[in-house]
């Protein structure tokens, strides 16, 4: 791990991502279900349904348990008075540096599911890009937003 990456996301974030992964994959189950019913009316063979079920179960497990775990384990961030460091990624590990001078504005966001978990994400905009620290505890997110906003204002500068 890179030195200086002290902060992880909230442990609740993992649970949230697992639920998120599970729920967003749920609609895809319509496909094997539709196949099952249409095989009754048309003369589709029944055996592919078992293949579908196995494949979809594996995908569900992947989306629900494995991917969120990897992403959560990888996530690190650090906010100093000079810059914001974030490191994340599932397959490709990405490490981004945003200097405080370049921060144009910062805001927190919260979807309905996030609200249920008491989580919020912080998004940081520069003149060229938007970077997000997802799924922090509400109060941590608010504090981080205020801190970045104050630090960024101290070094106010145009594009």
């Amino acid at each position: 791990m890179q030195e200086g990456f002290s902060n992880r996301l909230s442990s609740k974030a993992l649970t949230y991502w697992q639920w998120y992964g599970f729920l967003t994959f749920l609609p895809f189950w319509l496909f094997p279900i539709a196949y099952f019913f249409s095989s009754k009316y048309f003369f589709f063979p029944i055996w592919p349904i078992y293949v579908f079920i196995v494949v979809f179960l594996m995908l569900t497990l992947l989306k629900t348990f494995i991917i969120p775990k990897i992403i959560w384990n990888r996530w690190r961030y650090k906010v100093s008075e000079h810059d914001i460091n974030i490191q994340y990624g599932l397959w490709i590990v990405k490490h981004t540096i945003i200097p405080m001078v370049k921060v144009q504005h910062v805001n927190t966001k919260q979807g309905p599911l996030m609200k249920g978990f008491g989580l919020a994400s912080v998004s940081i905009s520069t003149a060229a890009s938007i970077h997000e620290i997802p799924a922090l505890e509400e109060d941590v997110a608010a504090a981080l937003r205020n801190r970045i906003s104050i630090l960024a204002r101290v070094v106010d500068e145009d594009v």
Partner: protein
Amino acid sequence: MYDLERLHPAAVIENLIRNIYKFFQILIGPLVIIATSPLSKRWLVIIAIVGLGAYFLISILSWYRFRYAVYNEELRIEYGILARRKTYIPIERIQSMQITTGIVQRIFGLVKVDVQTAGGSSEAKASLSAITKEQASKLQAQLNIIKHSTDMNEKISVIKNKKHLTLKTLLIAATTSNGIGVVLVGGLAVLSQINQHLPNEDIYTKIGESIINYAGDTVWIYLLSLLFILILAWILSIIGTIISIGGFTISRLEDRLLVQRGLIEKREISIPLNKIQAIKIVEGILRQPFGLATIQVVSAGIGSKSTNDTIAFPLLAKKEIPNFLAEFLPEYKTEITYTPLAKAAQNRYRLILTIPTLLAVIPILCFFNYGFLALLIAVLAWFWGKKQYKDAGINIEEEQIAIRYRLIGLNTYLIKHSKIQAIKLKQNPFQKRKNIKAIEVYIASSRAGSTVGLTGIKSSKGDEILNWYREF
């Protein structure tokens, strides 16, 4: 209080002409339907008159409502027919100013002034479509004076360096531009538009049929007509380039660059130096054998429509570039040695081009007699990948990062440390094993930001760049 000024009434005409294309796009469908239907032709005339009349009225109203002033270090604009809008642009946020003299403006002795701020949205710019030259220079002075003290204002209007595009270079630039593709694509777009609005059967099938009837299966007629179309497109692109960059002049003033160009529509863009986000040097594939390059300026305000707007100089011999930069943009350096990519990245560059080409070639291989000739394309892709790998490079020196990469042409970006909005390093597991990384540099540009990226640098180089970025 402050006095709000109106535009010159010619703005109504300007507005009408600007919107006439849009007008026809909306009305051409109904017009064609009526023209081809057995209905009385009177309706055609009535719809056209009512439509144009409405447009004329709207143009007059919007001209009447549109007023501007400079007050309290802001450019204030009030406009809108139903919803009244007020836009206040703080002067220090202005990224560039463009003065255009189109045909309408020239008839009335007027100019059009576009003021642009960062961000690509239409809200981010103000367009004064027709004001007198006196109003324009007053506006320019107002926008400058606030920024500098008055005695400074004398100094900043002095031209330090100036360079014209010679006729010879203009001709070379026009003949080697890649405008031919634009012309062909544009031509196709227009043809398909026409086809959509014709109610009867496909007109092009008919034309095609009659050509086949005429030519039969003599191959050379088809080849000849294809050649004819290509030459026509090429000539059109030459004319287009000459009109757009004819009379090109760049001047360096104390605190900004002034770029003038255009034969029919004259444009004058002034870019404050501290608003320049990056310099881009493009060596097109047609121009590279002659050792020629184009120099572009990346700015947060300009170039929202065409990349043409950002040209700092259309054509320059490569060996003249250091000299040119020394005269006009001494803050940037090109005489640097690029660190090549890591050896381990070479295969990636070759495979990423070759594998898709091979996959595309396989069907041709199977179904055609001389299909194996298509393999040549895959071989070409292999060597092209190698060339891309060899030409790429990166350099950090003092306050500047330089990134060079090839797609088809060779692109070089020079970016100041202070203009980098963020840096991202990326590494996938394969790259981790090979100890290489990819880098992305974020810069502000007309489209709300863009990235300049390079894959396959050594991990240690990536970390070095990150430290350089962090520590300045």
